[in-house]
């Protein structure tokens, strides 16, 4: 057990933002969710057990549910022009790249909740299976099965580029660093 160091939390921001986007299905909601999660976590000193990112995943999930409950109590209104999502306003981003990321994360957001949480925890946030099981209050074997189904649905939804053959069965992937990719610049 140790005290949570607020200054070290910034290193998880990019991964947490992608996780939030995959949970909400919208870039704007993801920004709000991440900010609210950080505000809640930092509202008072925290003592954590284990991994910081696992703790943040729990906090993100709890904040997400809390926002859903709050939203469900609000009166519902029809869509307005304000609800229309603009194109990515950041001029430095290439449209096709932003579209690819957005399409994938929004597809994740459409998965059944249990599948989505397992996939977000392990493949997007980079938790280990045991950390994910703790963060999501589920057994490791359950998380593994949910992850399998989630990946299967995502892989089937996105057809691969034509031409090249698929890799052979003997290959395997290992993510050795859970950090986000970095730009060359």
């Amino acid at each position, binding site marked *: 057990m140790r005290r949570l160091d607020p200054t070290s939390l910034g290193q998880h921001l990019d991964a947490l933002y992608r996780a939030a986007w995959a949970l909400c299905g919208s870039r704007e909601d993801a920004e709000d969710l991440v900010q609210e999660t950080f505000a809640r976590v930092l509202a008072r000193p925290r003592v954590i057990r284990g991994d910081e990112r696992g703790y943040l995943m729990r906090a993100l999930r709890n904040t997400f549910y809390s926002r859903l409950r709050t939203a469900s109590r609000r009166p519902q209104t029809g869509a307005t022009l304000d609800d229309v999502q603009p194109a990515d306003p950041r001029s430095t981003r290439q449209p096709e790249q932003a579209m690819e990321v957005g399409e994938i994360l929004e597809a994740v957001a459409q998965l059944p909740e249990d599948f989505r949480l397992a996939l977000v925890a392990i493949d997007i946030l980079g938790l280990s299976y045991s950390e994910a099981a703790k963060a999501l209050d589920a057994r490791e074997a359950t998380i593994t099965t949910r992850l399998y189904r989630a990946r299967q649905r995502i892989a089937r939804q996105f057809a691969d580029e034509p031409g*090249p053959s*698929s890799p052979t069965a003997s290959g395997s992937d*290992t993510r050795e660093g859970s950090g986000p990719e970095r730009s060359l610049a």
Partner: protein
Amino acid sequence: MTEERKHPEGELTRLADGTLPADRRADLLAQIQESADLTAALAEQERAVTMLRALDEPAPAALRARVNELTGPPAPRRAPRWRRAFVLPGATAIAAAIAVVVILVSGGAGAPTVPTAARLALASATLPAPAVDANDSDNLMLTAAGIPFPTWGAQKGWTASGARTDTVGGRKVTTVFYTSPSGKRIGYAITDGGPLSGARGSNVTRYGVRFTLQHSGPARLISWVRSGHTCVIAGRSVSYASLLRLATEDERQEGATAQVAAERAEYL
């Protein structure tokens, strides 16, 4: 028998992301080789892993600024002017000394890095495409640091379309460019000498080799070390999955056969 043995999908999930314990790999790989369904299921899992773990969307600057306000330490109090007058020249000298050490250790300001090699892989060709090796149809008649450039044509649909050689920081970088039937273009650069710095991004291991996935705007690149030399494949509007397939193709022949044989021997 564990629960995951009753449910092979659990083991496939872990095999695809490299977390399956070694003592269970050989058994599962043997099952996969005998089953088209398991082979297809593993390919799906691997495709999803590659796609999801290569996502590179950073948090927007405005969100980062708001979070920094929440997480950052309070601004330090400014030292009195008399103390700054003494401290600043000393700090500058220390910074300059550190910079000199860094430059010496890294091989000088002109030493090539992975981004340097990637820029060359995205540059224009200055030489014609090398011919296919008459004695080895898998490779071209061009090598760099003893590593032959592959043809890729028959299986992968990419054809060599040009080449270039450059010298950066005293090290030779050889690049071959390939074009797909749809007109997409990639560059494959191999740098003489030891591994380059600057490989920062998501890592994926295939056939025992670590591949690093990075991007620069619309350009994506994958780098890895082969026989002690850094190889970089880069292209614009080409998916990581496609680049990774090409990058792993060379390693597959050597690595996979040896790996599976070793695992089977260990299992038996």
